[in-house]
């Protein structure tokens, strides 16, 4: 009596296979010229940028009551596919002499920065916090921390915000400028904060967060500040410390000045090689690309498995940022292709995609 052992092939639906063997699923799709997200290789998801209109000074007809209170200075909603990012911008006031030193020293001590960077720069940035809603609570996870810091650094080094743009021109209550004689000895600046909430995350969200942050900054309006009646002087021996109550005007404000030419849009690509060893159906073999495939805007579990990532920020004509992860085997041609796609996409988003709100 002979027994033959037979192996039954297991069949999995795509969403299950994406979880257990993302690389196999990805290759299966690529072989027939498709992506797991069913987009074309170089196709971006549609982007919609709109005002959230919840800022204090963002008065608009529809939002009557919600404006005029609170400390939100700018806001935006950016949607890309099903993923939504909501960005709120707020601020605080800091004494110029103190901000740099304190911030700089603590960071230096904690090894967050090295002494080469962040000295005497004329650029300012936004302290960003990103929250990706995924059904968990507690401290931010790795991805959120990474994006928050990267956004801060990107805005800082891009030179989008001048430190001067955040300087506070103190005035009287009302409109007059303060006379030179009465000006306090210290000068003050605004510090900007942003929180970005991301819903329905489907893939890497850095591009979307950057878009939301920049759009909200463009809506941001800074309050006019005056010195309230109270002024205290504390003298300890020869050292005189002045304290002022700084109050923001309820109505008066002016838009945050941005260096518009530094505006950019960022695009992330994944680079993947077609694996000829994965078994495939000869009849269905449609793609004849040799070498690597560049995928625009990764989406879904199978595509997120791609480790080589290229992020390009561009304003349509000039390149303003480039980072490559898992760079082994990235060729000049791949980069050139990524630059080309990114700049075309930026051009589209910045000029027609609703950036002009």
């Amino acid at each position, binding site marked *: 009596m002979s027994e033959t052992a037979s192996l039954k092939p297991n069949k999995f639906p795509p969403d299950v296979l994406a979880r257990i063997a993302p690389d196999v699923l990805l290759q299966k799709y690529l072989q027939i010229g498709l992506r797991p997200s069913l987009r074309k290789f170089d196709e971006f998801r549609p982007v919609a940028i709109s005002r959230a209109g919840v800022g204090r000074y963002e008065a608009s007809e529809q939002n009557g009551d919600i404006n*005029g209170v609170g400390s939100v200075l700018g806001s935006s909603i950016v949607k890309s596919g099903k993923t939504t990012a909501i960005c709120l911008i707020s601020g605080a006031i800091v004494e110029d002499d103190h901000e740099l030193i304190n911030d700089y020293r603590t960071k230096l001590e904690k090894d967050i920065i090295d002494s080469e960077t962040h000295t005497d720069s004329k650029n300012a940035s936004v302290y960003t916090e990103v929250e990706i809603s995924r059904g968990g609570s507690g401290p931010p996870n790795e991805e959120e921390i990474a994006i928050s810091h990267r956004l801060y650094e990107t805005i800082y080094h891009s030179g989008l915000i001048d430190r001067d743009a955040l300087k506070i021109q103190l005035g009287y209550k009302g409109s007059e400028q303060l006379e030179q004689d009465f000006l306090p000895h210290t000068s003050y600046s605004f510090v900007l904060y942003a929180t970005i909430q991301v819903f329905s995350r489907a893939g890497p969200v850095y591009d979307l967060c950057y878009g939301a942050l920049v759009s909200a900054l463009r809506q941001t309006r800074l309050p006019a500040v005056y010195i309230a009646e109270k002024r205290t002087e504390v003298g300890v021996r020869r050292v005189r410390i002045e304290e002022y109550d700084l109050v923001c005007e309820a109505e008066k404000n002016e838009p945050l000045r941005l260096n518009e030419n530094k505006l950019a849009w960022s695009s992330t690509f994944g680079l993947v090689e077609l694996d000829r060893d994965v078994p495939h159906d000869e009849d269905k073999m449609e793609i004849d690309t040799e070498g690597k495939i560049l995928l625009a805007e990764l989406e879904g579990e199978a595509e997120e498995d791609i480790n080589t990532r290229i992020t390009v920020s561009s304003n349509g004509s000039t390149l303003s940022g480039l980072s490559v992860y898992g760079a082994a085997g990235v060729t000049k041609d791949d980069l050139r292709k990524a630059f080309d796609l990114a700049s075309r996409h930026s051009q589209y988003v910045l000029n027609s995609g609703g950036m002009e709100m």
Partner: protein
Amino acid sequence: MNADRRRNLGPANVRPLVFAESKPPAQHTNPKIFLETGLIQNCSGSSYLENDKTIIITSIYGPRPNFTRSFNDQASLKVSVELSKFLPLDNLKDNRKNITPDKERLIASLESFMLSNFQSLILLQNYPKSSIEIFVQVVALNPAHSLVYTLKNIINGVSVALVDSGLNIRSVASCGYSGSTDHEMAVNFSGQDEILGIWSDFTAFDESFDSAIDTCEKDSVQLRKEINGYLLQKATAKQ
């Protein structure tokens, strides 16, 4: 000095923005609500509720496997409320004490109230060894809305999200609100006249208490009609 390296918090010695007194917000409320379900993809159920510029986003995750205990015969429920940073909280004060509440205590009391409400509504025993998490995010808040009124909106948002999630529930809850100059009350009703929870600032159970409950019930019935209508429309549109 302790630096939180996980968050990008900025310099420590800043002063918060102090705004000059502006005109007080109008104290009227527009009962119109806008509801939408299923907007968030990576969760079991979600809802978006907009009422008079207050925006509440609810997402429900679960039942998911729960590894915290060796065995539990029913699902553990967790409710998290998140008031978005920079929201104006001045109007969320207690009616009796005229002080703006501490944000964390406020959130804790909202969470515990909702937990007790929904623990008796969701059939937790149908989901052993699992956990269900409800996340509420208040994205925008109309400054004219009081705490109790916001609570009503939150509960109704969660109710609709629960239906969207397909979790087993006894009935669709709907929360009614009654507000006067001295007292405010929100009562959460499940179907069949059953009260799931009462949040009020009444100190005596007199006639005004009874009439407030009646007002809440009327409000809740009205809301239930609207919610059922929306859900029915959504369900038939799918087919």
